[in-house]
């Protein structure tokens, strides 16, 4: 069954949090994972749920060769060596 707007955002947040440090998720990976569990979920809902998570600062886009969605964390390269 399709998730509500709020439940979808939480679902995605949990997915990103669980993957943190193990696997980098792209926006399309998130979409595919949601659709696997909730095949009737509207694709646009998923796009905008990601947007809300990013706009609210709970998730950030990162770039390591490709663009990923992650929980905000400290920039490795910014640390003094």
């Amino acid at each position: 069954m399709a998730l509500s707007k709020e439940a979808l955002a939480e679902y995605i947040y949990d997915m990103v949090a669980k993957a943190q440090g193990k696997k980098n998720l792209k926006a399309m990976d998130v979409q595919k994972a949601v659709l696997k569990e909730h095949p009737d979920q509207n694709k646009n809902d998923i796009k905008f749920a990601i947007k809300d998570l990013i706009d609210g600062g709970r998730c950030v886009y990162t770039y390591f060769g490709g663009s990923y969605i992650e929980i905000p964390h400290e920039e490795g390269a910014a640390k003094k060596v």
Partner: protein
Amino acid sequence: MHKTPLLDQLESGPWPSFIKDLKRVAARKKPAADLLGLLERSYKDKITHWKHGGIVGVLGYGSGIIGRYTDLPEEFPGVEHFHTVRVNQPSGWFYTTKALRELCDIWDEHGSSILNVHGSTGDMIFLGTTTPELEPCFAKLTAKGWDLGGSGSAMRSPSCCVGMARCEWSCYDTMDLCYEATQNFQFEMHRPSFPYKFKIKCSGCPNDCVAAVARADMSVIGVWKDDIRIDQAAVKAYAGGELKPRGGATPYAKLDVQADVVALCPTACMAFDGKTLKIDNKNCNHCMHCISLMPQALRPGTETGATLLLGSHAPILEGAQMSWVIVPFMEMETPYEPFMDLVANITEWWSENGKNRERVGELMLRLGMRAFFKGVGLEPPPQTVKTPRANPFFFWHEEDFEAEAAGRKYIK
């Protein structure tokens, strides 16, 4: 200021030197002074002292800021952070001097004062600032009506040639398409959700001044469908030396119409008997050679639009590719719905099927043109066949047999 004997040599040649420019900025900006010091150090050590960042950005955007740090922050504190800000270009790179001054003022206040007009994306590149300066810089830019451009696995800022603003050959309004595409794909530009980058470049004619065919995933190149317009009197004037070839932009005083124009037509579709120039337009491949040489005698036709080509990219996973014709002719009229819809279909097909960091041109080759056309909902036109005489096989789809049985016609 750091001592830079190696860099100083670069000032000695006959060409304008970026070292000279940087020294001028370094006199008033610490980051520029340390940038010179760090570069000198790299020349000595023969290794880069830059590290890529992957997180910095402005709130809500996954694009437009590229994080950079030095691995020698103690020695060169001015470049401890040295992030790049991409400022979305205006169509055709037309700025008023007022706008340029405003941009420079913002960058003087919030960054190193070093900028690149323009980067290869076409965006104006602000080079070098620190993480705390990013949001204030972005706020100042947006207050003046600017926005960040694309970066990462996103739609990149579309770019175009000057088109109808300055060029009589433009077969559609490149600046308008570029602007409308930029507006239409805002979500895709700022929120990277593709397998990798995707670029749109718009040239008004096959001279392709923005090199769309080699530098854009989606190359939009202006073209005409009807006949080249010929002014026979002007052809004679070129033949007689009254008109200079290429508007005077060659070292030659007089054009030899037979040798320079007709004999160099790649499809040998022209003929000149000393008086009248003839073109077999069915065989013209729109290379622009003759028109570029005799602009006062020859002009593109009046039924104009664009050819869409897909897939060029620099070597990343596969070797470099040029874009490939996917739509031989499309009318280019505002609001460009067929174009926007096609780009959306293509990016969706690619996002569904592409591997991480696989450009759309690589995917097209991996899965084949047959899968591509089906996936994006295009009819396969014969113009897409690269080497027809060495490519005798076509694998039919199941529904083709049904269409055959129903009496499908091939010539419309």
